[in-house]
């Protein structure tokens, strides 16, 4: 889907790099210059640079920047610890907190005119989902060994051939639902904003949707991470 105006694509076009006009480029360079890739890198650069600038040197009595990051990181860690226990939360904190911050910022950046959400592309969300999906299987295998696969067969031995089919389907459906939820919500927000802007942009018609978009972005980021936590906890806990 063609987005109206994207600043980074315009700049890259001006430099002379081949920016694809369809949803998917053909050559490798075109694939690298797709909007969702460039905006994803923008978000990553933001997440690298802004903490470096605001954090500065760590002090015993925190300044404003350090205070903000301490509250944010501490809050996220407490949120994880509430759901999976302090020890496992500390183990999984780096990847899950990165997912949270990246998803939140990637969702929010689409609210600015001239920017798009990288998460409104299925490629980004399905990549994140595959990471989470493989992670929860690896965790389950690390905690239970081969017995981990026994809980796919259900509690009753006679029902095992049927249960394993159902469990496998429901396990693979996590790939679809987790990626499609984020993608669908953010894409719906983007399309709604674009349509309202084209219909009555001069009368501030997209304004309420912008306010709603902040809420949707935050909730979807929380939901993505919360479901990742639930999957990991389900894989790590003792099988019944």
């Amino acid at each position, binding site marked *: 889907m063609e987005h109206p105006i994207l600043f980074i694509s315009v700049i890259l076009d001006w430099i002379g790099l081949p920016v694809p006009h369809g949803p998917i480029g053909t050559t490798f360079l075109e694939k690298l210059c797709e909007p969702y890739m460039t905006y994803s890198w923008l978000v990553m650069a933001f997440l690298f640079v802004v903490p470096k600038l605001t954090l500065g040197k760590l002090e015993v009595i925190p300044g404003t920047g350090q205070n903000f990051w301490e509250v944010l990181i501490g809050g996220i860690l407490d949120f994880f610890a*509430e*759901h999976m226990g302090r020890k496992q939360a500390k183990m999984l904190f780096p990847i899950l907190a990165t997912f949270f911050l990246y998803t939140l910022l990637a969702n929010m950046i689409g609210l600015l005119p001239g920017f798009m959400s990288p998460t409104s592309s299925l490629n980004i969300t399905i990549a994140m989902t595959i990471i989470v999906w493989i992670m929860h299987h690896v965790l389950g295998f690390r905690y239970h060994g081969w017995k981990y696969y026994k809980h796919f067969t259900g509690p009753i031995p006679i029902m095992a051939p049927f249960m394993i089919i159902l469990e496998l389907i429901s396990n693979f459906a996590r790939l*679809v*639902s987790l990626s*499609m*939820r984020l993608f*669908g*919500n953010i894409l*719906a927000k983007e399309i709604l904003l674009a349509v309202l802007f084209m219909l009555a942009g001069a009368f501030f018609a997209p304004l309420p949707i912008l306010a709603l978009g902040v809420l949707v972005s935050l*909730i979807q980021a*929380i*939901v993505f991470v*919360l*479901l990742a936590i*639930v999957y990991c906890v389900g894989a790590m806990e003792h099988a019944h």
Partner: protein
Amino acid sequence: MDKIHLALVCFAAATSIGLAGLGAGIGMGQGVGSACAGIARNPEAKGSITTTMILGMALIESIAIYGLVIAFILLYANPLLS
């Protein structure tokens, strides 16, 4: 492609997201109503009720998202029309 085919595809896409949204809306409404009642009865349990509600909302919402995905497939990546 005939115009009647295009019209049928558009109708199918609109119906899929519409019906999925209807069902998900009813389900989410019941969920939010029960969560509000629970918080009104026991305000101390607000935190855990809210988390559970958001998780349930997300799971219900995925059904509506499936409808949206079907609509997108019908409109942009229809395997029968190409």
